[in-house]
Each structure stands twice: as C-alpha cells, then as structure tokens.
C-alpha cells in the first residue's frame, strides 16, 4: 500500500515549549490510524500542523509524496485533507443541509462571475451539488434532520454532521478529532458504524481519541504521543501492553487503559 501522509521530524514550539517534537508518522492508504496520548500530549497541535493552522517550526509534511509544509490551510483542504473538529464546530445558524452544502465549496468549476450572474450552467452545477449533499446526508443517516438548524440537533448528531461536512469535501484523508467524546454508548455505536462506512468507501482516516474501546475496535494501527514525542506505534493489542504507554498514562493520572 502506498503512503498517503508522512511527517518527518515534525516539530512545533510555542514560546520555548515543544508542543510537538520530532514526530515521524506515516499513514498508508485506506487504513484507520489512531493517535492517542494523555491530555496535552500534542495531538491536537499535530492535527493543526497537518491542516495548516499553525506554521511548522521544523520538519516536513508530505501528502501523496508532495511537500505541503507551510502551505495555507485552504490549499491543504483542497488537496484532499479534511478535518472534523474536536467539539461540534459547525455553522450553528444554518440548517443541516446548508452546513453540508458549504462543504462542497471547493468543488465548483464554473468561474465566479458566472456564479454571480446565476447562469444556467452554474444553476446546473449547483443542482448537482445539492444532489450530492442529499447523498451524503442519506449516507450518514441524517436525512430526517436535513432542514433542522445545526444548533437544535442533539450532540451526537452534531458530531456526525461535523463528519458529514468534512466528507462533503470528498477528502482522501480524513482527520477526526475526538469523534466519540461526550457520546452515549448508542451514539458511539452509530459513530463507529459511520466511520467504518467511510473507511469502506475508500477514505483514509486518522483518529485522535480518548475512548479506548472505540479506538481499539476501529484502528488498524495506533500511535502514542506523550509530551510532544511519539513514544510508540503498533497494532492495537501491542499498544495495550506496551509498558512505556502504560507509564505515560498512569503518570499523568488521566486515563486508564
């Protein structure tokens, strides 16, 4: 399998503090990789570096063997890296449909002046986009809620909607930031099904998550970050028994394995 995403000695300093320190990390096509670690281990910063929100201090990021270090966030997004945020970061005032509709922004080919004039070619293109939105919503099981405001959805649905929006960009790589946090068991089960469905559709996924059960179940491989460094990377079973990992978690008193 080809390597989709690779970081080489990726480092980020905030002031004098290393949030991410010389992390080498690889994601191959069509796998689900988990990224775990105690609070403050640098997982979210790592995501922010990949999606271009923070400038990298040193190191390189390769996506499909292309160097994307220092590329702006919206360019990275249009290359095919999508991201669903930690909490429900949505367009709260918009309907579910419009939320997903916004996700299709990078997929219009007609030039902007035509869009301004609402020419028939543009209308046709938008019609196509609307159908695509319907498909995504159906696929993710939100069809019943299409006209509700995102603000008024239950928490679990909001998180699924977040994934929907990311999926609308037709990504090659999907970064999921804590998709299971704050969910009931039933909602978690739904989300797991959603993630599996996405994987089956051929999208590569990286998950940052605290919910070990879900991570263990979903991931093909797990990497562990602690204090900005990668301390382990292996199959789920091995990770569970890795002494350094257990030490990291026990030492921080945060989470139990």
């Amino acid at each position: 399998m080809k390597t989709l995403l690779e970081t080489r000695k990726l480092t980020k300093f905030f002031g004098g503090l290393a949030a991410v320190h010389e992390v080498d990390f690889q994601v191959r096509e069509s796998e689900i990789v988990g990224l775990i670690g105690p609070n403050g281990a640098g997982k979210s910063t790592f995501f922010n570096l990949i999606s271009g929100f923070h400038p990298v201090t040193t190191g390189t990021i390769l996506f499909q063997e292309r160097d994307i270090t220092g590329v702006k966030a919206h360019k990275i997004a249009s290359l095919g890296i999508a991201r669903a945020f930690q909490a429900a970061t949505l367009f709260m005032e918009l309907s579910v449909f419009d939320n997903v509709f916004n996700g299709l922004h990078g997929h219009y080919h007609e030039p902007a002046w035509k869009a301004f004039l609402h020419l028939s070619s543009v209308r046709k293109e938008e019609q196509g986009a609307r159908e695509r939105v319907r498909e995504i919503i159906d696929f993710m099981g939100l069809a019943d809620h299409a006209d509700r405001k995102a603000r008024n959805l239950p928490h679990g649905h909001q998180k699924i909607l977040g994934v929907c929006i990311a999926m609308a960009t037709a990504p090659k790589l999907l970064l999921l930031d804590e998709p299971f946090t704050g969910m009931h068991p039933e909602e978690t089960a739904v989300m797991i099904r959603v993630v599996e469905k996405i994987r089956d559709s051929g999208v590569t996924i990286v998950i940052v998550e605290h919910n070990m059960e879900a991570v263990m179940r979903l991931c093909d491989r797990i990497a562990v970050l602690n204090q900005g460094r990668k301390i382990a990377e292996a199959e789920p079973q091995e990770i569970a028994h890795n002494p350094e990992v257990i030490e990291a978690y026990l030492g921080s008193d945060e989470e139990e394995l």
Partner: protein
Amino acid sequence: MNRGSRKKGIIALGCACLILALLPFFTDSRYFMHLIIMTCINIMLGLSFSMLFSAGLVTMGAAGFWGIGAYTSALLVLKAGLSFWVAMPLAALATACVAFIVGLVIIRAPGVAFIIQTMIVNMILVQVFGHFEFFGGWAGLLDIPAPNPIGPITFTGKTANYYLILMLLLVNILAFYALYTSRIGRAWSAIRLNARLAETLSVDLFRYRLVAFIISSAGAGLAGSFYAHYFQTLEPNMFNVFKSIYIQIYSILGGLNFYIPGPVIGAAIITFVPELLRIGKEIEPILTGAVLILLVIFLPGGILSLPDRLGFFTKEPLAASSGKNSVQEQQEKRVL
C-alpha cells in the same frame, strides 16, 4: 436560502419598489424628497457595511470610501470635463482600486484591530482630501454640476434625482442579492459563522474577504458619486469617522442578520428620527441618543427581529436551547 424566503423577499422588494416609485405622486414636499434621497444614499452605505459584515468583518471606514467615490466623480467632471454618466462607473472603479490596495494591507489584521484600522484609513482619507489643494482643500469643492441631462430629463429637481438614486439602489440591491445567493455569498457566511471551519472547507479567507471589501467599497463609491452631484458641494468632513459610525448603526438598528432589509430600515430610522425631533432644537441629540440606546437594549437583534420577538412567523424556537447552547459555544471556542 430556501424557496419560501426567496419568494417572500421578491414580493417585498416588488411592493417596496412600487410604493417608492409612486411616492413622488403623493407628496409635494421637496424637503421630504430630500430626506428620502438621503435615506437612499445612506441605505447604499449601510448595504456596503453589511456586505463586509456578511464576510465576518466590521468596518468603521465606510464613509472614507464613500468620499473617494464622491471626490473622484466630482474631480473627473470638474477637472477632466467628463460626463457624469462616465464619471460614475469610473468613481466606483477608483474606489474599488483603492479598496484593493488598502485591503491588501489591512484585511489580515486580527478582529478588533481591523475595526480600528479601517477607522484610521478613514481619518487618513479625510486628511488627504483636506490637505491637498487638488481635492479642494478643507474648503472643499463647489459647484459640482448636476448629472448631465438624458434627452428631456434634467437632474436639477428632486424627482429626477430621486428616480436616479432609486435605480442605483435597486441595481445595488439586486447585485448584492445575487452575490449573497451565489456560492460567493455562501462562502462569506461560512467565514462569518466559523472562519476556522470554512478554511478547512478550502475557502480562501483572505481572498474572499478582500473581494467583499472591494465590492462593498465599490458600492459605497457609487453612492458617493451620486451624492457629489446631488449635493453639489463636497468638503472633507462630510466623510469623517463619525459618519462611518452612523453607517454602522444603520445595520445594527435594522438587524445585523438581515443583510439587505436591515440597512434599509436602519438608515430610514437614523435619517428620519433626528429630523422628526428637530423641534427639540438643542436637546435633539439627547433624544436621538436615548432612542438609539433604547432600541439597542430592547431590540438587540434589530428592528427586523421584532416580528420574531412578538412571536409572529416563528417556525423554529429562537433560542430553543439555552443551557446547552452556551456549553457548546464554550467547546467551540476552545477549538479556535
């Protein structure tokens, strides 16, 4: 934007156009017509503000760009001898060019800094208009001719000018409406509602904001061009920061979430209330100030939120979730 609200909007626009088009037949007060014309100009300025707001930016410099339009148009007519009808689009173009250059510098400024920097740009423009004799200095420009007549129609009276500004306003509204309903407008609203998320959806924040800045300034420039030839005199202080602040109040009073009807209502109120209170003589500003404060406190969503407030046409509860909302907002905030 769903079909229902579009239909409603078109009906509202049609009715408003009809009423406004027939207005001169019902009144013979030229003072009233003057106020209506000023209202139309102010509406165009308010629309310019709310377009930037739709892209998540707040400007306190709209009056400066208004001034660029006014001065360009006046100078082109006075010094280069062009016809008003040529000078008007050129004025809008010149304003857009200045906005492009200014935007390159200030669009990147974070949040509140952008607000103050637009204010500074406005002050700079006023100083430039005042300091250089080319622009007429602090005394300003005098005897700017009225728009050139088209066939039998002359633009010296109020009525012809009124129809002219009404046409400009209509064009302005339609163009802005077309933008808001296109993917450009959707990208703006995405930026306003959640800039971070919009960025991950491959929306180029800088470019879209710059486009909003340029287009909104061009709208203000267009209004300025008309203003110069209607008012026939210009002086730098017409375009000072305090005017910009009023422009912002138009949108706030009307309702910030109503990009087009908001400024219409707000500008009408801010233009007419002080005139109604004129009989209060020297205490007029105290009364106007009180009205402003009361409106802001009691109707924070703007005048247009009144129907919602009173419970008309509400399909979905407005603040359905009170406790949960703020928790979500907190979480949302931490992501940023």
